[in-house]
């Protein structure tokens, strides 16, 4: 087995272990609560995958996770720990909704791209603030981007309660967007729409650019060692700024896809915690576009399954946070410790070797 395949298998094993660990913890909690864990997990998986409408819902919820996860993967790869996805997502959705409501009489082929572009610009600029402060002044981007999350979300909530409030509505919510800004559905009996196809396209594009072009080569080099890249004549700042802007733009898309795809208007707190969920997606996907795609679909499915589970079993959806937390920590731990599972299993037959490997790991 060559090295790359071996690393891949090891990685998959580590994900399985992470998941088993997460479900074991949840299972124990459920047992303690007197809820049958097997039945609960059945409900979870049924809600996630069984039946066209459930599957459609899973892919629907996966879409923003894939888009945002790609953005996080890009920024983490470049050594920028953008935790500001939440704010970028809200502002992106806000921009798209505003354009979707207020531009009247445009054909859909013009209106939709304009809304998407608007969300990307808002998301990108919101990410540029911590990005610029980090790249030019060396300020810790994690703190600044988290603080800006709160500012962004409160701003959007304010907008929805005042100048952007649907007149006469009981809740704080925006008017409905024009039909020309709504995405078409692609699966009968579910809300799944073209934004999912767009996410697939962006995954492919990301893969192509990141691994097959000189721009991607330089992004990878800058992310792994900015100083060596600069010494080699790569315009480090330019690429880092590019990465953070694209990262924010993708979070913005993750927001607009939800509004334009099926919500069609914005309510306050319309997508809670998604900006943090995408970090779990990015890490679970090993910061690789294909990995992000799979992880996004998986977590989307969990989300959709969890709401079914909550209805059927009365188990709160907040267990998803526990699952995500455990997954982030275990995957980080496994990838850092670099455990060679294949070697461990192979070594069980030659006991001495396996011990020394475990020690090394």
């Amino acid at each position, binding site marked *: 087995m060559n090295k790359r395949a071996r690393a891949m298998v090891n990685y998959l094993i580590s994900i399985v272990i992470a998941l088993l660990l997460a479900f074991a913890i949840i299972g124990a909690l459920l047992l303690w609560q007197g809820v049958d864990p097997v039945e609960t997990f059945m409900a979870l998986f049924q809600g996630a995958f069984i039946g066209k409408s459930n599957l459609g819902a899973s892919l629907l919820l996966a879409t923003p996770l894939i888009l945002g996860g790609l953005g996080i993967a890009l920024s983490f790869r470049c050594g920028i720990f953008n935790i500001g996805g939440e704010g970028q997502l809200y502002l992106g959705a806000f921009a798209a909704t505003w354009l979707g409501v207020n531009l009247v009489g445009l054909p859909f082929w013009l209106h939709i791209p304009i809304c998407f572009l608007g969300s990307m610009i808002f998301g990108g600029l919101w990410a540029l603030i911590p990005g610029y402060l980090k790249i030019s002044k060396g300020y810790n981007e994690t703190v600044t981007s988290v603080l800006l999350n709160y500012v962004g979300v409160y701003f959007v909530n304010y907008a929805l309660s005042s100048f952007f409030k649907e007149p006469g509505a009981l809740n704080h919510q925006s008017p409905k967007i024009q039909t020309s800004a709504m995405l078409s559905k692609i699966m009968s009996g579910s809300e799944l729409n073209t934004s999912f196809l767009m996410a697939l396209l962006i995954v492919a594009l990301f893969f192509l650019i990141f691994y*097959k*072009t*000189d*721009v991607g*080569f*330089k992004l*990878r*080099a800058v992310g*792994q*060692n900015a*100083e*060596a*890249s*600069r*010494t*080699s*004549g*790569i*315009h480090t700042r330019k690429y880092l700024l590019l990465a953070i802007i694209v990262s924010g733009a993708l979070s913005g898309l993750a927001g607009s896809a939800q509004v334009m795809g099926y919500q069609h208007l914005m309510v306050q707190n319309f997508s809670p915690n998604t900006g943090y969920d995408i970090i779990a997606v990015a890490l679970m996907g090993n910061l690789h576009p294909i990995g992000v795609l799979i992880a996004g679909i998986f977590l989307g499915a969990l989300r959709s399954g969890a709401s079914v589970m909550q209805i059927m079993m009365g188990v709160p959806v907040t267990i998803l946070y526990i699952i995500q937390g455990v997954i982030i920590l275990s995957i980080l731990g496994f990838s850092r410790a670099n455990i060679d599972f294949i070697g461990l299993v192979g070594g069980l037959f030659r006991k001495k070797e396996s011990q*020394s490997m475990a020690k*090394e790991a």
Partner: protein
Amino acid sequence: MEPVLRVHNITKRFGSNVANDHISFDLYPGEIHALLGENGAGKSTLMNVIYGVYGADEGEIYLNGKPVEISSPKHAIELGIGMVHQHFMLIPAFTVAENIVLGMQKELRLDIKDAEAKIAAASEKYDLRVDPHALVSTLSVGEQQRVEILKVLFRGAKILILDEPTAVLTPQEITELFATLERLKKDGVSIVFISHKLNELMSISDRISILRRGKITGCIDDLANCNPEALASAMVGRQVTLGVEKPEQEAGEVVLELDHLSVCNEAKKEIIKEFSLQIRAGEIVGLAGVDGNGQSELVKGITGLLPATGGAIRIQGVDMTGKTPREFIDAGVGHIPEDRHKQGLVLSMSVKENLFLETIQDRPYTKRHLLQKKAIQEKAKSLQEFYDIRAASLEVPAGALSGGNQQKIIVGRILEQDPKLLVAVHPTRGLDIGATEFVHKCLLKARAEGCAILLVSTELDEILELSDQIAVIYEGECMGVVRDRDATKEGIGLLMAGVKGTQAATAS
């Protein structure tokens, strides 16, 4: 007489790699016993075993005839063994006194006044002058080394291990260090002196043990009847001729001209002050100086990594002031950076990718932004063969290679761009003799082809060997430029220590 320290049959393995293979070694009271060996020969491992950092897999250690099990550095210190590391173990943000008492205080209350008084007394006693109140970050390298030695003595060490102590010192500071060591020897301190510099070892040591590939290959008692060539051969395991063939050659046009160049570091402090220098085609100019006198900033100024804050840089007559690193590369400036891990390579990327860090966007490697797999593979293959880069495959990460092969990646990809000016910074630091020879050959070949070369090194021997002219840098200023044939070690040493005047350089 009984040895204070006896190491018997020590073996230490890391996985399948045997770092120390049945090593025996002894140290008598009041002796300076040198340990000579190339990088990776196992010197550091042996010392770390003695200092309790690693446990040995086999073998015993005896102190004053009694077997001991040294479990940790703390234990080693208690047993009277002290170590001065090559990279000083000091905390720049702390004062000298705080550094010295660190880890010594049992009681909770920190009485720094009392500690300072004791340190002042010890500094008097051993004649190691340092100010206990001073912040370490304000001290010169030589002073920091004194703090390190004092720190060890203050803990009551009777056995002193010095790891490459001269690497960062001027010739004058080396003389001073040696005087200190002689004094300590008279006080009954026994010293293990680790180095790869032959001449130095011969002047300070009582005995020399040679370590090669984890084994002791010889112990020389009779230093009077021994020459550097013989030592070098014993160290490398084959016949070596010290010194390189440097044919006489007429220098051509001026390639690099620094005209009163000033450069600030990242913290906006002016480090390089009005530095003027010319380098011609086919000429190697060595830049001598103690580490930290502005070499890094000067190099970054010449390669566009730091902007000039005053004066001008001209390359082949073109004013390059204020240009980007990319424009410097395009103007023909090649840069072998001082820290190959931080600046030279992206360790986690493959050997192949590392060969194209500067040139990836050029044809034929990239067309319309798409990487051309075949052209890249072919070029990489030919570079690997030509520069003898030994790697399991081109796909392995650069970090998996030995230091010598990593340096060959850098040297190869830089020379491949046919630079008009080559800035080589510590190009052989940490390399074994074979790889060093290879790099030296590459530099001389570039010289023969008419490349102008700035060689920055703290190894005075290397500079004297390769350079046509020698410039000396001290606190960011150019102290003078000396022709190779007029240069003496002492003269250069004075300039390195900041003593001005052209007389100094040529005085014998």
